[in-house]
């Protein structure tokens, strides 16, 4: 049996899965103590179940989001090696950074050495300030990690009490400011996360659950619990990832769907394009921080079941505020949930209260906008639901056009003009059933509200498989290759024979090794090449080498136990 638990901002959902069926589910309000919420939901679904029968536990939590939002993180000193280029002061992430000399260029060549005296001085200063965490980030450290490693060595020898986080390990892809932000957040959240993980371990041990535990990341992939400690920031936004993976599990394979997760205050939209969830192009935005964290592209609309309804200039205005639950559930104002209750689309709370709320809105609307021979309260409720559908449809269209407007750097990418349109509108969350058919009709799609829609997130956490990617650059002129994910730089042999195919094989091999290290061997066979490009380096009309870029990914997907 499989267990999936999503500790979200409002609710904690848990699901117990046997033979591809959700056999038990639980939903409880999330308390400030995330661990106790998680365990309460777990205990509910585990009642009477033999712990030895559990094969896999998948968790998604809002812990990192909360830590960062509430600023409950450790202070981190940022030591940056910007080299020549843009003035770091143009980026807020460097506001209080210690900038030191040294430079690596775009091909990973050292163009300026570090200055040991300067490093010694900076570290002394940091120690004096009482800071214990240091993020060391160099420009182009994903192409050559030598400078970051030198500093690491110096600090561990001379300041053993300082804990150092290195940029090339946290975020090795191109983008220095995002690398700095990601590294800093990694350093800042690790202690609390480590603590959380060990508590989970202890609690599961207590309950005699010996199954491997996986943590869901923002890109819909999972990592073994022990490895998640190395990349705490990657587990941010796992809630929307969990819902999307749940939808992937509940809809036909390979289709294009819009995931509409309608909550109380907001609705989250995500896209699944031909079976692949769409990722943000450069990395997630974590509050004001731009990071390199791979994450699903999620559009949050300030409109949900509990949004406040008002009439302004004879027109309905829904959201963006939420003042409490729906009136039918004892809340203060009229909400879309009340409108649905009036129309009998849901069976929640007190119908009389719902009618009162909607009647107040009806009175404020012009009388000539009411249908004759129909109660104004019914017409108004219908108008409200239509308006919600119109807003969500507009946002979905906007999301598609934004995706179409993403920059392309190659002619073939520009020529792929074919516009992709969704086949399905898939609803999850409590208000989904009445709204999804309306949106689907507007968009000329099939509307789907799966049976397990209310706990799609918990299901997603349970059945998401690991993801992993590597970004390889081969430079045959310098006879080296670099791996962006950890800044590894290795010598190459047999250069003359090195072409795209060899580079792809090398990339697959490296991915396999890395997957093994992470305990994810079983999925490395699923790896696919997502990007391949070869540049001949011409100097003075003759070729002096090749630059080859290859990216190999284990894409987001579902575990074998769910598919087979």
């Amino acid at each position: 049996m499989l267990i999936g638990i999503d500790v979200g901002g409002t609710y904690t959902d848990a699901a117990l899965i046997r033979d591809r069926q959700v056999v038990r589910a639980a939903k409880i309000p999330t308390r400030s103590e995330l661990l106790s919420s998680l365990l309460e939901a777990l205990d509910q679904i585990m009642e009477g179940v033999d712990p030895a029968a559990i094969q896999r536990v998948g968790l998604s939590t809002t812990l990192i989001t909360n830590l960062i939002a509430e600023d409950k993180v450790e202070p981190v000193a940022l030591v940056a090696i910007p080299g020549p280029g843009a003035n770091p002061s143009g980026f807020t992430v460097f506001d209080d950074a210690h900038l030191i000399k040294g430079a690596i260029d775009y091909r990973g060549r050292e163009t300026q050495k570090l200055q040991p005296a300067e490093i010694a001085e900076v570290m002394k200063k940091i120690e004096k300030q009482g800071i214990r965490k240091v993020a060391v980030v160099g420009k182009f450290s994903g192409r050559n990690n030598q400078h970051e490693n030198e500093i690491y060595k110096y600090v561990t020898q001379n300041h053993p009490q300082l804990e150092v986080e290195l940029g090339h390990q946290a975020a090795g892809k191109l983008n220095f400011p995002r690398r700095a932000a990601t590294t800093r957040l990694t350093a800042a959240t690790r202690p609390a996360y480590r603590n959380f993980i060990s508590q989970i371990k202890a609690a599961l041990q207590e309950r005699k659950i010996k199954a491997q535990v996986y943590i869901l990341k923002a890109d819909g992939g999972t990592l073994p619990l022990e490895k998640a400690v190395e990349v705490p920031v990657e587990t941010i936004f796992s809630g929307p990832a969990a819902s999307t993976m749940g939808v992937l599990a509940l809809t036909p394979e390979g289709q294009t769907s819009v995931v509409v997760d309608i909550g109380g205050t907001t609705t989250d939209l995500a896209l699944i394009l031909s079976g692949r969830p769409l990722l943000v192009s450069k990395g997630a935005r974590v509050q004001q921080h731009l990071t390199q964290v791979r994450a699903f592209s999620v559009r949050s609309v300030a409109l949900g079941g509990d949004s406040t309804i008002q009439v302004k200039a004879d027109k309905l205005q829904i959201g963006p505020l939420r003042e409490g639950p729906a009136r039918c559930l004892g809340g203060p104002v009229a909400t879309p949930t009340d409108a649905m209750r009036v129309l009998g689309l849901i069976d929640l709370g007190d119908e009389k209260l719902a009618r009162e709320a909607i009647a107040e809105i009806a009175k404020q609307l012009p009388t000539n906008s009411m249908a004759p021979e129909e109660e104004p309260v019914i017409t108004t409720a219908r108008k409200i639901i239509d308006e919600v559908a119109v807003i969500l449809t507009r946002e979905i269209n906007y999301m598609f056009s934004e995706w179409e407007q993403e920059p392309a750097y190659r002619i073939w990418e520009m020529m792929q003009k074919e516009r992709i349109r969704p086949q399905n509108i898939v609803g999850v969350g409590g208000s989904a059933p009445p709204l999804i058919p309306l949106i689907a009709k507007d968009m000329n799609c099939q509307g789907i509200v799966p049976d397990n829609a209310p706990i799609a997130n918990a299901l997603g956490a349970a059945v998401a498989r690991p993801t992993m990617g590597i970004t390889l650059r081969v430079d045959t002129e310098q006879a080296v290759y670099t791996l962006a994910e950890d800044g590894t730089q290795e010598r190459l042999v047999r250069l003359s024979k090195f072409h795209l195919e060899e580079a792809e094989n090398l990339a697959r091999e490296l991915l396999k090794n890395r997957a093994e290290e992470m305990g994810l061997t079983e999925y490395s066979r699923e790896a696919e090449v997502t990007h391949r490009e070869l540049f001949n380096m011409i100097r003075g009309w003759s070729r002096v080498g090749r630059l080859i870029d290859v990216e190999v990914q284990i894409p987001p997907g579902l575990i074998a136990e769910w598919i087979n």
Partner: protein
Amino acid sequence: MQPTLKPWNQRRWDTMDPKSRSTGLVFFPAFDWAISPTHPEREERLLYTKDQIFEEGLMDLPQVVEYKAGFATEKDVARVHFCVPDVRAQITDAHLISVGSAMVLADAFMQGEVTNAFALVRPPGHHAMRVAHGNRGFCNINNEAIMIEYLRHKYGLRRLVIVDTDVHHGDGTQEIFYHDPDVLFISFHQDGRTLYPGSGFIPELGGPGAYCSNINIPLPPGTSDEGIHYVLDNLVMPIIRDFDPEIVVNSAGQDNHFTDPLASMRWTAHGYALLNEKLRPDIAVLEGGYAIETALPYVNTGIILAMAGLDYSHVREPDLQPGALKMSPSTKERVHEVVRDLQEIWANRKELARKRKEEVGAYYENNKRIYYDTDQIEERQTERVKMCADCAGYLKISSSAEKMWNNQRIIGISIPLYACPACQKEARDVFLKEKEQAKPTTDVIYLQDKPNDTFIEWSPYRKEERRY
């Protein structure tokens, strides 16, 4: 749309609220396009630039707005060029995307979405002339010219300045606007006696109806940042202010860099950035620049930062030794001399233009030979311009080109957007007459009717017409 686009003179970057400033950027490196595998204009050209600007995180800056590349239409190309035998024959998708991207940014600028914009795109275009028989100096069609005619057509602009900052003379752009008094073309470049394409001398001041609207500033090899800023401060900027354009376009080549393999100038990335800060181009379009490792990553970073109003003082080439790029005293003297000569011409421009027009009769005729280095084509051309008191006249071109075994002859008639009604009518009549009298040996007869935004290719042999 910008409610009313103030004249360029009244728009100032430096007095703007830095927070309300933004620079539109299209980055289109065409990683899958090359003239030939070892050609300087090949896939690798903007690879290191990509690495640098991505690593810098420039696209994440609130002051930089990245736009997706776009497509120009064949009609946009026909608005400027007589493509032989038709538009498709002279372009690839890469060309349409390169110029289309400049147009995307032109729209963004005109609609007030950005303060200024930079099309960091390839292939380049400034050696492409009005008649396009093939590729010249790595160019088939002229990105800036097509963008400008698009701007005029769509937004009714009229007076523009193009400053060509490529090390090579922008002979294509010069040729296209040579008879247009409303486009001031300024090109500074390494002296044509020492570099391709061998033109761009001071006396090339424009056609008799547009005299002194074409300013060439041939500079001696070895001219440094100091030299170019002397030219900018004492000549280029005062001239632009006098001309009072609606917008200024930078035809932004980067081959004046001290490491460029094709030329011998001594500019730095810092010099390029400062140039853009002073010049305040509304739209910059990348042209040449082939020091793909040692120059382009730094020059492009510098230009983007300068246009976005950000500090570019940290942009520095790793191998640049302080003080190493000084001009010799004789080079400096030569630069000053060129500036003095042109200052004098500019001061007397009205008188010179009046005299020049008096020298010619009702029509101005001129014979030219044009060589296409890349495609090895030899073109002979006769241009005939109507001299009109009310407008810039219309233009008729007869051209024949020898291309390996075959010889192509065309006749083209071009009516400027702001031609007077009499000239418009006469030009259309000439086109009809040419059609009637056409010999089968003439391959194509063109009408470029800009007032009607209609562009016709007539094939006398097949008696077929294609309209854009």
